[in-house]
């Protein structure tokens, strides 16, 4: 599995806001079929890195390779065109619209002038059941009637529906109850098992260990280690997060 090329690979990415250096020489890879957990303390640069991946922030220098080919992202649209979908914490769903309408927002199916509701509804139901999402009554429910976990699910399903190849999830389980968190985690895992590359940002080590294949640890804007989850312990990861090194891993002493 280690011979597969990463779907996304960043090399030597630097990013500053004015005089403040936020990312330094960051290397990061995401592999198809794997969940890569991105961990780090507050302010370690996780959000900035995600925004660079999603084309929201231009990076100052470094290489951005997608499927091994260098690409240059100018905007979120470029990222979307590559099949990169970022699910932000605020989810960005329209509460006054129903699940189907949200799933197809901005990319509605139409027949001539008219929206093709029946096809959209069918596709939505198919996508959701393909993800074994079993916790919603109807695809015609309004978002405002859904729980936090269900909303998260809809936001993630949107990424799947649009044939994304890389999905970045920013703290999907924050502010969810435990049952919903578990469902979202299983959904995250299923996304990867369906062949997508998934990047998961999380503070919860149980969540990270439960679903991830690799762990990438940021410490003060540097990528101190990107390791296979099978090879590290909880203590290793906490040490990387809190001091940038752990045993042989991380920053040189």
């Amino acid at each position, binding site marked *: 599995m280690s011979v597969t090329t990463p779907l996304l690979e960043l090399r030597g990415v630097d990013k500053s806001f004015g005089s*403040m250096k936020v990312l330094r020489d960051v290397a990061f890879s995401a592999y198809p079929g794997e969940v890569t957990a991105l961990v780090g303390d507050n*302010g370690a640069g996780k959000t900035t890195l995600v925004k660079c991946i999603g084309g929201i922030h231009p990076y100052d220098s470094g290489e951005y390779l997608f499927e091994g080919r260098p690409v240059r992202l100018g905007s979120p649209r470029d990222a979307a065109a590559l099949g990169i979908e970022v699910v932000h914490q605020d989810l960005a769903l329209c509460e006054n619209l129903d699940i189907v309408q949200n799933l197809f927002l901005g990319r509605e199916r139409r027949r001539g002038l008219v929206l093709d509701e029946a096809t959209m509804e069918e596709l939505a139901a198919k996508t959701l059941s393909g993800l074994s999402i079993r916790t919603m009554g109807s695809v015609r429910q309004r978002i405002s009637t859904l729980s936090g976990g269900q909303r998260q699910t809809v936001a993630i399903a949107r990424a799947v529906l649009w044939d994304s190849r890389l999905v970045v999830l920013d703290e999907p389980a924050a502010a969810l109850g435990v049952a919903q968190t578990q469902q979202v985690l299983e959904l995250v895992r299923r996304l990867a098992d369906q062949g997508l590359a998934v990047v998961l940002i999380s503070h919860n080590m149980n969540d990270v260990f439960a679903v991830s294949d690799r762990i990438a640890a940021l410490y003060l*804007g540097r990528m101190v280690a990107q390791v296979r989850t099978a090879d590290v312990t909880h*203590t290793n990861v*906490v040490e990387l997060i809190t001091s940038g090194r752990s*045993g042989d891993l991380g920053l040189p002493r």
Partner: protein
Amino acid sequence: MADTNVEDTPPADDGHPVLRITGLNKSFGPVHVLHDVDFALRRGEVMALVGDNGAGKSTLIKCVAGIHPVDTGRIEFEGREVRVTGPRDAAALGIEVVYQDLALADNLDIVQNMFLGRERRRGIVLDEHSMEEAARETLARLSVRTVKSVRQQVASLSGGQRQTVAIAKAALWESKVVILDEPTAALGVQQTRQVLDLVRRLADTGHAVGLISHNLNDVFEVADRVTALYLGRVAAEVRTADVTTSQVVELITAGRSGDLGLAPHTAAENI
């Protein structure tokens, strides 16, 4: 099991702790979050409080600040037992807590923020001059030089400068204990430096400082002692000079490290 106090050998006693908490327990309904916690802050020292997410750091601080009432336990301030039933009690004792969200009003300037809610006045008029002087004097005492003018709007400050203002605000009030909740989170390297320097000076000017941090390098740089919380218990209170980061990480994640920490059976069979 309750006797987890590793700090039985008295440290080179530099006076009694300003604030000493013993046997503190705290539950939220059925959820038990703090168990027999001992915690002490000494004048002129920085005590770092470390622990994993959910180990109970914020709860402990909120108990000290009077935001959460404690279930059982004793809080001593300067040797006397006190009851802290609200943030006002804590402030009256001279305990100031600087939270992560800082609670600064962006549209006001530094002086106005530092005196927010406790404005000095002459008659019914605000005494701007005296406040400005006091603010400038406090900042100078803490050697804060990065701020151009005390009349600058907070909105125009960088993250580090805001943190500085918030800390200076806490130091302004004759406070004896200042507790800082993750003051360096989300700051750049440069700004982290400034804030850590300020934390150190705060202790050097005679305050007892509590510092919550996730960054162990910061902790080792600025703190004199570390209290490590593990699942709501104090795993150990140690001098930073006596331990390594790896030991502290083990205390955080497993509750023990070598001879330090909790007895084996409470720390999940020593694994």
